[in-house]
C-alpha cells in the first residue's frame, strides 16, 4: 500500500507491502514496528536503529513525539490523496488567516485595527490567560480584515478574534 505523508511541508512517499521492509521515496528500509499496550508508545527498529515514540491521532493528523520533539504528520493513502487532489482540497489554501483564541481568557488589547497593513509577527491581540499576557501575532503578512473583539471581552477557546486577509497587490 502506498501512502503520501507530510511533515513540516516535506512530502514522503512511503510504500508498505511487506511486514519487514518499507520503501521511502524509493529507498528500502528494514523495519520492525510494534505498538506497546502503554499510552500510544511504539517501538520501531529502522535498519536496526531503535526509535521509541508516542503516536496519537487527533483531528486527522498524527502527532508523533520523538526524542522530545513533537511532529504533526498527515498520512493519506494514495487513493485519498488522489481524491483530495481531484477535489482541489490541496490547492484550496484560503486567502484569509483566522486568529482564534488558543484558550479561554480576557482581551487586554487589540493593537491592530481593521484595515491595518501588518507584517508577520506583528501583535494583533493581547489575551490574558494562565495569569500571563499572551501576544497573538500575525502568522503572515496581510491586511487586518476584521477584529471581532475589544479590550475587556471574555473569550472562549477557539473563538474567532480577528481575520487577516491576503496582502493587497501594490501598484507597480
Amino acid at each position: 500500500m502506498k501512502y503520501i505523508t507530510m511533515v513540516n511541508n516535506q512530502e514522503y512517499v512511503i510504500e508498505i507491502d511487506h511486514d519487514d521492509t518499507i520503501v521511502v521515496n524509493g529507498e528500502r528500509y528494514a523495519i520492525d514496528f510494534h505498538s506497546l499496550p502503554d499510552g500510544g508508545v511504539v517501538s520501531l527498529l529502522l535498519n536496526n536503529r531503535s526509535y521509541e515514540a508516542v503516536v496519537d491521532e487527533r483531528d486527522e493528523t498524527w502527532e508523533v513525539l520523538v526524542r522530545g520533539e513533537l511532529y504533526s504528520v498527515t498520512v493519506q493513502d494514495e487513493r485519498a490523496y488522489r481524491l483530495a487532489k481531484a477535489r482541489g482540497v490541496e490547492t484550496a489554501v484560503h486567502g484569509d488567516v483566522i486568529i482564534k483564541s488558543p484558550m479561554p481568557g480576557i482581551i487586554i488589547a487589540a493593537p491592530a485595527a481593521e484595515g491595518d497593513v501588518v507584517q508577520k509577527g506583528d501583535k494583533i491581540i493581547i489575551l490574558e490567560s494562565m495569569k500571563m499576557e499572551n501576544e497573538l501575532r500575525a502568522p503572515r503578512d496581510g491586511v487586518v480584515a476584521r477584529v471581532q473583539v475589544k479590550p475587556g471581552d471574555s473569550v472562549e477557546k477557539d473563538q474567532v478574534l480577528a481575520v487577516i486577509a491576503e496582502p493587497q497587490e501594490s501598484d507597480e
Partner: protein
Amino acid sequence: MRNNGLLTKKFDKLLIANRGEIAMRILRAAHELGLDTVAVYSDADRYAPHVRYAKEAYHIGPSPARESYLVIDKLLDVAKKSGAEAIHPGYGFLAERAEFAQACVDAGIVFVGPSADAIRTMGDKQRARETVMAANVPVVPGVAPGTDEELVAAGNEIGFPLLVKATAGGGGKGMRPVYAATELPDAIAAARREAQAAFGDGTVYLEKMIVEGRHIEIQLMADSHGNTIYLGERECSLQRRHQKLIEESPSFVVDEDLRRRMGAVAVAAAQAVNYVNAGTIEFLVDKDKHFYFLEMNTRLQVEHPVTELVTGVDIVQEMLRVARGRKLRITQEEVKMKGWAIECRINAEDPYNNYMPSTGTITTSRLPTGPGVRVDTGVFPGYEVTPYYDSMISKLICFGETRGEAALRMRRALAEYRIMGVKTNIPFHQHMMDSHRFLTGQFDTKFVEERFSMSDREVMDELEAAILATLAAHQRGQQASQIVAPGMRDTSNWKYLGRWERLRR
C-alpha cells in the same frame, strides 16, 4: 511561643494550602517526618495526586483559585474541621499574603513561614528597599511611587533603560522595561493595569535597569532562636518575560569570596525583619560582580531543589522543623556545596509559537529516571491543563559532579521525557542544553529574549516521524479492514473493537 505575630509550636497534623507539584513536595516531606496530612482541592483537582496522596482531603470550592485556594476562611475552616495544627502555604496563592499568616496565628494555627510583619514589610517593594538600605544592603538606584507625571519626570532624570515595577508585584507581573522616554507613559499605564488586575494595587515605581545583569539569589534559613544561615546561591538568569525557566546551583560567576559577601548581606537583610523560616534574597549582579538587592521572597521557592541537591539539606523538612520551634540542624560552617544541579521548568507552552500556553488533556506522561535525575510533578495521564492555574507541568532537576556532567545528564533526561496531549517547552530546554552560550555560562537575564532563537534548531527526526506515523496509520487501517470483514472472527466485531481500543491505551 508568640513574638512579632509569629507562632511556633509542636504540631502533628499539617494542612497544605496548595496544589500541584509543590503540594506533592510538601506532602512527601511531612510524611517523612511522620506528620498527618490534610489536602484541599477545587472542582478541577478531585483526581489530582495531592488529593490521593494526603491522609485526608477536603473540597474547598470551584476551580477558579479566587473561589477556592485563595479563600482564607475556607482554609481555616478545613483546618478546624480536620484538626490540622499547622498550614504550609507552598508558593503562589496565599504564600505571601500577610493577612493569611496573621489569620492563622490568630486562630492558633502555625503558619509554616515567616511572621505576618516580615511578609508585609518585604511584600511592599518600597518598604523592603528602605528596610534593607537601613541594614547597609546595596540596592538598585530608583524612584519612589508617585503620579504618572512625577514618574515620567523622574524617569528622565535617572535615565534609560529603566524598569517600571509594581510595589505589590512579583513573578514579573506589573513590570515593564522602558528603553526610551517616549515609551515611558504607556509602560506605566500597562504596568498599573496588570498590577491592578493581579494584586488589586496599581502602585508602581521606577528602577534603573542593570544591563548584562545576572539574577542570582541566596537561599536563607532562619529559626526562631536567632540563627540565620545561607545555603549558597542559585543562578536564575535564564528567564523569559521575568519568568524563570532554568535555574542552577552554584552559579558560574560566584566564587567563594562573592558567595560569602552576598550571603552575609542576605543574612543582614533577613535579620532586619526578624525573619524566621525559609526565604530567598534576590540580587542583580552586574558584569563587574557588583550586586544589588532586588527583593525578598518570603516563602519556599519553585527552584529550591537545586539547592537541596548541592547542599544535601532538605529545605521543606527544615521548614517544618523550624515551624515546630526547633533549632536549625546545621550551622553556617557545616554548609558545604558539592557538585552541580540544574533545573528545567517544563511548561505547557509551545516554544515554536512564541511560547503560547497550550491547554488540553495529558494523554501520556512518562518521566525520565536513572542516576542523578529528580522530577517534581503534579500531573498524570488524564490530567487537564486548564487556564485556571499556571502552565508548569513539572520540574526536571539533574545533578552532576560538575556543571558539564549535570548538563549532559539533563540532555539525556529531556530526551527520555514523554509528555503528550499538550505542547511542552522540552525542545526549548534541549536547544538550550545544546547551546554554546549556555554550556560556557555566558548569559544574562536578557539572553533568552534577545539572543536565543528556536529557529536555528535543526530538525532531527523528520523522516523517522513520517515513517512512524505512516506505520501507525497503516496498522490502524489493517485493524479496521479486519473489522469490516464479518464472519472471519469467532467473536463479535464490537467486542473485538472494544478490546483492541483498550489495548491501545
